[in-house]
């Protein structure tokens, strides 16, 4: 990230251009000067266009942040960015929660689900990826093709049978239907990402270890896992964010409000069409986003590079 050096080259180029020693004297060849000038102007336009685009793209988020300080009466009248009479009462209302459940409970539920998703996804995906990338066994090619196939499969084809299955197991309105699949590597994206990463690793080390008599468990744990740590971190962050944002799963399986994670709890605010408490709705939305925004700020290198190298989608 080079936010600190933001715009520095443009300034340098401007200075360079204004320096009397570099401006071509009359009658001499002036092509270098003209080229510098053209380049500078291009850079300036480049910055202006991108800053305008950034403002446009980030506007919804900035608007949300400022809207959390607007009193209810201001919604509908003041649609601008800055609240006229800033207030903190929205946050107090949100803290109380909704439907008799305090806010911290929704947060806790989201945290439990997302943490379980991270642990399950990372362990099961790494194991499967090791088999696909590093072991030769009968049926490897066809199973690998099947795994790639599930990448393209619309998830909705299996939601009804899965619902019936978990319903028959008596797991509706518990966290199990949301947690168990994560431990079974059902998210093919993570398996695929780790396979790609493991294939890049040189084979010398594990071949040497094999000659020394190490088995696959040993090689996986002592050699591969330490080497693929960056990819595992990318998987962990993404599975956390996806689980945190997940709406359909909790909507299907969780029925009592004290089990709700944040996205479903937000629905309760949004559904209140009668009272239309905009302040609380907007503020609860913002509060639900905070962990992801923090994750983004802290880990953006991992997130953006993870996407760039592996073609993972947000």
């Amino acid at each position: 990230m080079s936010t600190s050096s933001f715009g520095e080259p443009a300034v340098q180029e401007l200075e360079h251009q204004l320096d009397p020693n570099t401006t071509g004297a009359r009658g001499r060849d002036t092509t270098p000067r003209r080229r510098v000038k053209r380049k500078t102007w291009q850079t300036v336009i480049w910055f202006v266009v991108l800053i305008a685009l950034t403002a446009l793209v980030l506007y919804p988020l900035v608007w949300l942040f400022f809207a959390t300080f607007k009193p209810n009466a201001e919604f509908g009248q003041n649609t601008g960015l800055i609240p006229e009479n800033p207030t903190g009462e929205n946050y107090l209302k949100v803290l109380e929660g909704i439907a008799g459940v305090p806010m911290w409970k929704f947060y806790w539920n989201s945290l439990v689900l997302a943490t379980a998703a991270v642990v399950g996804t990372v362990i099961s995906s790494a194991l499967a990826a090791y088999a696909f990338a590093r072991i030769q066994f009968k049926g490897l090619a066809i199973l690998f093709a099947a795994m790639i196939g599930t990448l393209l499969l619309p998830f909705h084809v299996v939601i009804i049978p899965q619902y019936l299955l978990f319903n028959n197991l008596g797991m509706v309105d518990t966290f199990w239907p949301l947690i168990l699949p994560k431990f079974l590597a059902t998210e093919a994206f993570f398996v695929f990402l780790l396979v790609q990463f493991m294939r890049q690793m040189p084979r010398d080390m594990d071949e040497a270890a094999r000659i020394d008599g190490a088995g696959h468990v040993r090689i996986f744990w002592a050699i591969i896992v330490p080497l693929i740590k960056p990819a595992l971190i990318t998987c962990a962050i993404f599975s956390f964010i996806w689980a945190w944002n997940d709406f359909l799963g909790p909507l299907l399986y969780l029925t009592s409000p004290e089990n709700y994670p944040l996205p479903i709890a937000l629905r309760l605010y949004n559904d209140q069409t009668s009272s239309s408490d905009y302040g609380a709705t907007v503020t609860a939305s913002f509060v639900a986003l905070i962990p992801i925004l923090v994750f983004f700020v802290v880990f953006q290198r991992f997130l953006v590079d993870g996407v760039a190298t592996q073609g993972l989608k947000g």
Partner: protein
Amino acid sequence: MTTTSTRALVTGRRLPKGRLMPRRTSEAPAQRPGQRRRQWRETLAGYGFLSPWLIGFFGLTIIPMIYSLYLSFTRYNIFQPPRWIGFDNYIRLFTNDPQFIQSAQITLIYVLVGTPVMLAAALATALLLNYRDKGAGFFRSAFYAPSLIAASVSVAIVWRALFSTDGPVDNTLSFFGLELGGWVGNPDLVLPAMIILAVWQFGATMVIFLAGLKQIPKELYEAAEMDGANAMQRFRAVTIPMLSPVIFFNLLLGLIGAFQVFSSAYIISNGSGGPAGMTNFITLYLYKRGFSDGQMGYAAAIAWVLLVVVAIIAFILFRTQRSWVHYSGDNR
């Protein structure tokens, strides 16, 4: 789909027909004593490591798929056992269900308009960022942020507020003399609002494009410039062909992802699919039929129509890629 190497899609390299992975170097040329036992041990280890995935793959994907195909030929409401009705669900879907026809239409519009516009925005921004390295990192991250949260309920709620009557978008447009009113309650404008939401999350796609652009050898551009090609010609003759595997990848995932939009439509319409059914995307319609009306068999039929449409689109894309996707490297 299996006729073309899936690995080629990702690595941009083409492998011999029928092969999904490169040949392993240690593949045994001849059987030696102890070889079979070792092979057996390897297979055992392979399936051992794969066992969680195998349970998930068969238990939560393959068997449920077969079961949902069966259900799609039945009438089933959970309380009574499924009753076989043959093709009735499918016939009803296409001949006697205007809600489904509308749902399919708006989903197709959303996919066929939203995905290309999103790809174009992503590619244009990637080209802009590729112009210079200094400072580009900041913009790259800023544009990427929305794609992490676009699927969240929070953002759908924000969208509702932004595009409501007297909301920020409405006010800005009426300042320019465009009196459109609220978008969310307007059947003509709610779909465009949804498409804008899809385009807004172009960041992840842009990052993949940017990575692809960085891999194009500079010499190609220099050679084209020496031949007198202008910027537009260089873009068409060098950038597009060299980027075509990445375009293919983004297009495929973009289309498939767009077919499955659910939570934003649910939140923006309060679960109704309104106004006038214009946010009743196919997944939302499936959810309503299956879980609100208890028509599980009918919902399974909708799911299978969705699956077939996605499969057809993927198949067409894979079939046409020969004519427009350019893979460098070993073309055998």
